[in-house]
């Protein structure tokens, strides 16, 4: 897929996200959390773009910024070349039709007081007020069938379904408006392993039949290998490596990526040589100077403590690392 001529669909340019930090009248000042630090990514049409990283590294924050739930503090987000991060709900309407989201927790993402039919009809009623009842019902049934759901579920409430079924209903809701781009925020991490594959397959089939582009967030590297064609690895609010999936798994360059990949259990028992890292992830309230990874990096030197590395092409992958740049690694 990556061999096709790419046309960028979503461009994320120097996006920063800050939370807290302000102190108002009579309210104590809150610590400033730097959740995203100058993140730049381009997602091409047809990509299954995976975002990996450990908990708290800003994956979901980036997803929410892209979809417009938390507009970024700084930087631009463009959709097909048009800036969308500063639009009002109304101005955004044409883009909301094309960009949808699937959430992590299938138990919280469906309104418990609405039947499946009500949940699925709502997007159509809002975006196509002229559609007749019969047309809406036909569309709902078609989408339900396409994700492998039984249309007889429509009159039931979410609590009557299992996690996997609910997640397929969530996917159906995201597909109702025939979007081009879907942000999936850990859509399978709350599911049983046997159901994970099923939901992944539904998503891959939908991609094939509807020409979807995914931004897929996960911390399961085997899912990335199976599902994604491009991967970005995040650490503490910064992208440290960006590559095609094949290259990343074959030749990880960034020390963090190497450590991450070495932690994947392997069937043949060869995975005992973990790259051991010392210490803990620093807090986003007090970022380390220079490269955010230098406190735990076995290859860090003085330059890493002073300067912030930028993503640079190094042939196979793009890395933000001085050690790779200088050939020390």
């Amino acid at each position: 897929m990556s061999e096709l001529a790419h046309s960028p669909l979503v461009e994320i340019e120097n996006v920063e996200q800050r939370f807290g930090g302000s102190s108002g009248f009579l309210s104590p000042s809150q610590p400033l959390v730097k959740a995203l630090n100058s993140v730049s990514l381009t997602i091409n049409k047809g990509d299954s773009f995976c975002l990996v990283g450990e908990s708290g590294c800003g994956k979901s924050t980036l997803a929410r910024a892209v979809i417009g739930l938390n507009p970024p503090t700084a930087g631009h987000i463009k959709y097909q070349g048009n800036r969308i991060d500063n639009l009002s709900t109304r101005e955004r309407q044409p883009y909301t039709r094309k960009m949808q989201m699937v959430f992590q927790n299938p138990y919280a993402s469906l309104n418990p007081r609405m039947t499946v039919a009500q949940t699925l009809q709502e997007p159509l009623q809002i975006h196509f007020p002229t559609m007749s009842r019969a047309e809406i019902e036909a569309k709902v049934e078609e989408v339900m069938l396409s994700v492998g759901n039984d249309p007889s579920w429509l009159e039931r409430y979410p609590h009557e379904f299992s996690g996997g079924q609910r997640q397929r209903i969530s996917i159906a809701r995201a597909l109702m408006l025939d979007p081009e781009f879907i942000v999936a925020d850990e859509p399978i991490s709350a599911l049983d392993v046997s159901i994970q594959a099923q939901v992944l397959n539904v998503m891959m089939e939908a991609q094939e039949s509807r020409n979807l582009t995914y931004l897929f967030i996960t911390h399961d590297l085997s899912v990335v290998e199976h599902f994604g064609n491009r991967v970005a690895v995040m650490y503490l609010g910064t992208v440290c490596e960006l590559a095609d999936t094949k290259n990343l798994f074959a030749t990880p360059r960034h020390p963090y990526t190497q450590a991450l990949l070495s932690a994947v259990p392997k069937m043949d028992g060869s995975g005992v040589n973990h790259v051991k890292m010392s210490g803990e992830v620093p807090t986003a309230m007090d970022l380390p100077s220079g490269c955010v990874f230098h406190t735990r990096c076995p290859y860090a030197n003085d330059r890493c403590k002073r300067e912030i590395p930028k993503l640079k092409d190094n042939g196979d992958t793009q890395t933000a690392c001085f050690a790779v740049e200088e050939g020390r690694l």
Partner: protein
Amino acid sequence: MNKMAVFLGSDFVYRFKKDKVALVSFSLVVTLILAALLAPVIAPHNPYDLTTIDIMDSELAPIWTDGDTDERFLLGTDPQGRDLLSTILYGMRISLVIGIFAVMLQAFLGVTIGLLSGYIGGRVDAFFMRLADIQLSLSTLMVAIITLAVFQAAFGAELYSELAIFMLVLVIGIAEWPQYARTVRASVLAEKHKEYVDAARVIGMAPKRIMLRHILPNTLSPILVISTIQVANAIISEAALSFLGLGMPVNKPSLGSLISSGFEFIFSGSWWITVIPSIVLIMLILSINLLGDWLRDVLNPKLYKD
């Protein structure tokens, strides 16, 4: 039909049938409300029809006592010669109407303000919640007494007695909105960070629709619980105001004004004029409150007792 069957088979109905307190208080509330609704049919006299009232009948004792009795008047008569039973039935009607409409007004104001301040947050939230703090620091009765007394002084007792019901609904309704606003706001704060609200925003839904269609239905159970208790509170407030002479006028007595009108005669031996309406009022309030307590226990599983 099917929905009815589902409802009758539900846990809610099962727990209701098991709970004796709930059963008794529910049947008492229903009996009293029916009696009030059907007052024109079941009351032996019409206390509003002046031609049927005879001053010579005043202060007759209930028929089971030794004093002056008359078999036409089961519970005796009040100082104006009205049949006490009929007056209580009609009075309960007025008390219930004021209670229910005042609570509807409270709920409307409180739910609207609670939804807005919970969902929008920031300055809107701070403004309304400080307003609620101010409102709560003034007791309902104090606000009501001042407003009603000023109204009565400014426009005269004549106009006041015509508008008394509206004024009472308005004053009690406005004075107690913070109860609702705070409860609703707390539930909205809990609901608005759930993913289904995010999903609604991603779909491009307007905030108004998200609040009304997604968040409000999920905050209904606490609203239901405080509504029952607030109806009882509103009836008490009305009775207290009527007792103080700021409520319903003498010719259209509510339970409170009936209690108050008998109070002057209590030392001359005519105890029934005060005591019997008081017992009715206490039964009404107590059963509504017990029902509300039961509802709160059932709808909030975290409070399950033993």
